[in-house]
């Protein structure tokens, strides 16, 4: 199993677009925050004094990016290239005869998720570091009571919520890539699913009076609410309550975890199954 992983790493380390979609996070954060600090220093602005808890919360804010549309679009683009690139370059013919198909797909998941997690973790670390530097540079007092343990806990919990989102995005994008055999098609499908999922989460309460049974059923079944609920539970320690015309809606975090996990596992299992039976023409 290590050999196909090593092969995946070797090929994608040399592919600029793919590599760029990993390192965009730490590099982007560094550039944007450095610019923001420079502007604040130039203007002589001093930030507000914060409590230790809010400072730690702010420092872990970076993990909202993989939960947001932009983060998921870019993660989807990365996964689309990793999985569908082989069809575009016509290179499955080169490697499929030499390895069991499931190990090739497993290697892609390991490398795609590993690199995305690396990119986001480095981005979060840079975000934390630059927040601290910003306070130093602008003379904003850094609250006492910030400990490495508290910071790690905040990042860990926010990172777990982000991981659920990354896994789900990777799952439906990879299936789209294998089914369509096209990077562009996989990317478009990934964008559409991400967008619809988010739109439905926000607009479902408006549609509920028109089709109450259907909307409630979809809200329970589709992963949009559950991702947000998991994030709320992990980072804020409470369930997400959504106001519907018929009344407040909430579900237990355990149920949300089970539904997100089920979606992810089913989509990943389908990816393996489709690829195992697929003709490489």
């Amino acid at each position, binding site marked *: 199993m290590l050999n196909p992983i090593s092969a995946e790493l070797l090929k994608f380390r*040399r592919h600029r677009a793919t590599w760029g979609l990993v390192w965009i996070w730490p590099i982007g954060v560094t550039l944007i925050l450095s610019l923001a600090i420079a502007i604040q220093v130039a203007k002589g602005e001093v930030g507000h004094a914060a409590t230790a808890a809010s400072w730690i919360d702010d420092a872990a804010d970076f993990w909202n990016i993989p939960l947001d549309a932009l983060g998921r679009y870019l993660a989807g683009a990365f996964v689309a290239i990793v999985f569908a690139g082989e069809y575009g*370059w016509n290179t499955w*013919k080169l*490697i*499929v*005869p*030499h*390895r069991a198909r499931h190990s090739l797909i497993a290697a892609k998941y390991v490398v795609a998720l590993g690199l995305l997690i690396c990119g986001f973790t480095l981005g979060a670390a840079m975000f934390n570091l630059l927040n601290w530097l910003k306070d130093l540079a602008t003379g904003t007092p850094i609250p006492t009571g910030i400990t490495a343990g508290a910071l790690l806990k905040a990042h860990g919990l926010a990172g777990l919520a982000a991981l659920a989102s990354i896994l789900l995005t990777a799952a439906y994008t990879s299936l789209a890539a294998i089914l369509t055999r096209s990077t562009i098609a996989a990317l478009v499908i990934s964008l559409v699913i991400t967008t619809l999922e988010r739109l439905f989460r926000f607009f479902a309460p408006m549609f509920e009076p028109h089709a109450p049974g259907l909307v409630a059923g979809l809200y329970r079944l589709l992963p949009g609410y559950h991702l947000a609920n998991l994030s709320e539970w992990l980072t804020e320690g409470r369930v997400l309550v959504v106001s519907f015309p018929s009344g407040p809606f909430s579900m237990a975090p355990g149920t949300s975890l089970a539904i997100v996990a089920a979606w992810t596992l089913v989509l990943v299992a389908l990816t393996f199954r489709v690829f195992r039976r697929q003709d490489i*023409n």
Partner: protein
Amino acid sequence: MNISVNKGGDNAAPVLALTDLSKTYGRRGGSVNAVRGVSIAVGAGEVYGFLGPNGAGKSTTIRMLIGLIAPSAGRVSLFGRDLAAEPSLLRRVGSLVDGGAFYPFLSGRRNLEVLAKTHGGGAERIDALLDQVGLARDARRKVKAYSTGMRQRLGVAAALLNDPEIVILDEPVNGLDVAGIQEMRELIRSLAADRGKTVFLSSHLLSEVQQVCDRVAIINKGQVVRESTVAGLLDQEATSLRVEAAPVEAAAAALSPHWPVVRDGTALTVTAGRAEAPAVARRLIEAEIALFSLTPVQANLEEVFLALTREEPADA
């Protein structure tokens, strides 16, 4: 010409066998039978040619052979074992399909490194192979800058990377110049003759097949229409007999009621197959004509190929 002898004769256990292999695309109504009941057996050390016009089913057969597409029916056996049950047998096979598709953003060398890592070995052979296929100087250039011929040669290096026992080459001389074709021909021959490898190659260049292969199968419309040694195929498909007899006029008179006869100097060309040679001889002897020689005239492979794959006019 030093063509190796047929080592895939009746006594040799086939290292590669296709049994009633079929592939159907689509569903009932709109289905296409790309390959229909193909059965062939290739012996160890043999160079086996797979000939057919475009769309005959060559590439589909080769893709089934290397596990890229699943057969609709039939069986692929490698080294006497069922490929469907043991896909890992393909680790003992090297293949070049579609002119060698590679990662365009990687150098030739890096492509081979990726491949070596994928199948877990062969990295130590990369330099020697690049040298062997004449790409040592261009090994660090990106593949997207390679010519078709260079990609083809890299494809051959890739096919040999895991030191396979069976080498499957789909149109290996495509895109090569004359010198490259000559080199490829020598390489293929040396793979079998010097290194004991079994080579299964498809080509539309009949002269290449004739010069390199021990045996050939001709496939048309998804079916093998003839399988034979190259010499046997040419003999079987001989369509005329050259007759040296005296007096030649009397010989022509004796034969012409039965077969079309053309005088060719002091000899006759009789339009008759090899199977009819005894009957021709009998006619001449019965007419008390001195028969000096009776030789089937060999068609070239191209004529045989065209005869076997020609479209029959549809019935009115």
